């Protein structure tokens, strides 16, 4: 998709694809970045109307889980895993589960027609929505992480890593959520897939890995949220190994690029039938 506005191109550059000489001039294309910004802003404003599901539910869920786990795990590595897992769970709930539901419903109800009849690049619609959903997770993730650190007596020193964890895990999970929502043939299926993804992130992310059987651990390695959890958990140690942290975050970023590309393809496919 070209990001150059059609109206700044000289006529001859378009001549190859412009057929009849008497054809009317086309309206301008919306360029990628401005339209992405417009979609992002519009999506973000939805938080005002749907505040409770988008901002609060996930946070309460994660805080509840940490309180439950307080009596079960010891204060060492397991506590770090629980706090990191609960924080990233907020991202999984909103970016994966809720975004899958949103796109599933939009597709089923014909709401995609609105975007499909505007000259907007598909990537702008998908990235704008994914970005907004990733942004919805910021307050919940931060609150959960701080609350968890206080609850389990973990150091707050490296919480800044959330600046990298939220966008990268957010990209990976939102991309996955958008792709699932746009590919699911029915909206109930999109909801189910989103829920299952979120449940997987809950079970495989929050529960400490070293107690799991080999097969489950392998599944855990396949889930993109795991790398966000690991990266975050490593920073609680006295002397974090930053190379591993970077490696985990790189996996999140790579999954994010691939899943958002798949979601963009899925959008094109869903928009014109």
């Amino acid at each position, binding site marked *: 998709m070209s990001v150059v506005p059609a109206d700044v191109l000289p006529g001859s550059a378009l001549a190859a694809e412009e057929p009849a000489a008497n054809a009317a001039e*086309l309206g301008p294309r919306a360029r990628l970045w*401005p339209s992405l910004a417009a979609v992002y802003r519009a999506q973000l*404003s939805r938080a005002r109307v749907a505040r409770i599901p988008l901002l609060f539910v996930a946070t309460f869920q994660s805080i509840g889980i940490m309180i439950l786990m307080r009596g079960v795990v010891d204060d060492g590595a397991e506590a770090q895993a629980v706090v990191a897992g609960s924080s990233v769970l907020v991202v999984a709930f909103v970016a994966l589960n809720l975004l899958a539901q949103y796109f599933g419903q939009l597709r089923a109800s*014909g709401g995609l027609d609105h975007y499909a*009849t505007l000259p907007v690049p598909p990537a702008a619609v998908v990235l704008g929505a994914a970005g907004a959903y990733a942004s919805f997770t910021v307050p919940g993730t931060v609150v959960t992480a701080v609350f968890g650190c206080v609850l389990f007596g973990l150091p707050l020193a490296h919480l800044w890593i959330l600046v990298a964890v939220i966008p990268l895990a957010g990209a990976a999970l939102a991309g996955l959520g958008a792709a699932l929502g746009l590919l699911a043939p029915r909206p109930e299926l999109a909801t189910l897939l989103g829920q299952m993804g979120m449940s997987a992130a809950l079970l495989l992310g929050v529960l400490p890995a070293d107690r799991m059987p080999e097969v489950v651990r392998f599944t855990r390695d396949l889930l993109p949220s795991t790398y966000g959890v690991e990266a975050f958990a490593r920073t609680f140690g006295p002397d974090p190994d930053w190379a591993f942290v970077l490696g985990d975050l790189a996996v999140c970023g790579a999954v994010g690029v691939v899943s958002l590309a798949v979601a963009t393809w899925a959008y094109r496919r869903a928009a014109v039938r």
Partner: protein
Amino acid sequence: MSKRAAQAFRHDGDVVCAVRGLTKTYPAVRGRRGAPGTPEVRATDDVTLDIRRGEIFGLLGPNGAGKSTLVRQLTGLMRPDTGSVEILGHDIVRHPERAARILAYLGQESTALDELTVSLAAETTGRLRGLDVRRARAERDDVLDELGLASLAGRPLKKLSGGQRRLACFAAALVGERPLLVLDEPTTGMDPVARRAVWSAVDRRRAERGTTVLLVTHNVIEAETVLDRVAVLDRGRVIACDTPGGLKEQVAGEVRVDLVWRDAAPLHVPEVAALRDRVVEAGRRWTLRLGPEEARAVVATVTGGAAFAALDDFTLATPSLEDVYLALGGAARQGLVKA
């Protein structure tokens, strides 16, 4: 298609949208457990139309006639199996993405905008139509003022009534000017004030910029009052295409008599009983299509004598587009709205 309309198509220069032989078939769905299968459906069947610059062209037909399927093919949302669509010189079948740069589409669904405020819905739509921020905001303000929506600008669409929400979606469709407006039942649920706002906004754009409008409707009264020309659709086929007046001339020899009985029809009156097999019955309402002489006789019968006691109301009317639809062999007895 009527001869008159076909002749008018000859001068090509002013044709905004040319549709030729458009056909779309939905494949048969095999039945599964608990769900019966559906046979193959021709949603649009060899549709040929020309829409001229500056006119309000209507697609009229009952639900399921194929209006929305046809419109989806004209807006590039659906690929036809065969046939061609050319809008302002652009081949929309081969380049469906160009439709978004030529026309504005108001669909029946508002889910994409529901949780936005009226103002942001209009502004965002304008920006996605390629306007920069300043233009989008300026046009948004103009359109909201024009449609009397300024006082609702800060409210989310979800919290508005059905008619207000429809008007807000219409506003979004107008931001970022397009030479062709495709409106799928734009006035559904609107009160008379909102309807008037819609039609005067459309008229202003026609007068000032020569905007062309393709309107989908199943409302007969609206079709008669606002349309310049109308194509009547039935089961995916265009069964007539002309001006509303021209179409009505086809059934000019007939008058419609509506009789509403208080209770049941007084079948003991022989003159009433004789009419029985010629009426279309809907509850207490009888509808008859008769020659003027005969209609007068029927009215005389029911307004005098024994039948009058059983009569609640009656009307005598010149034919409407609904009568045209039925006279042309339209299959659905119900489904066109008169409101």
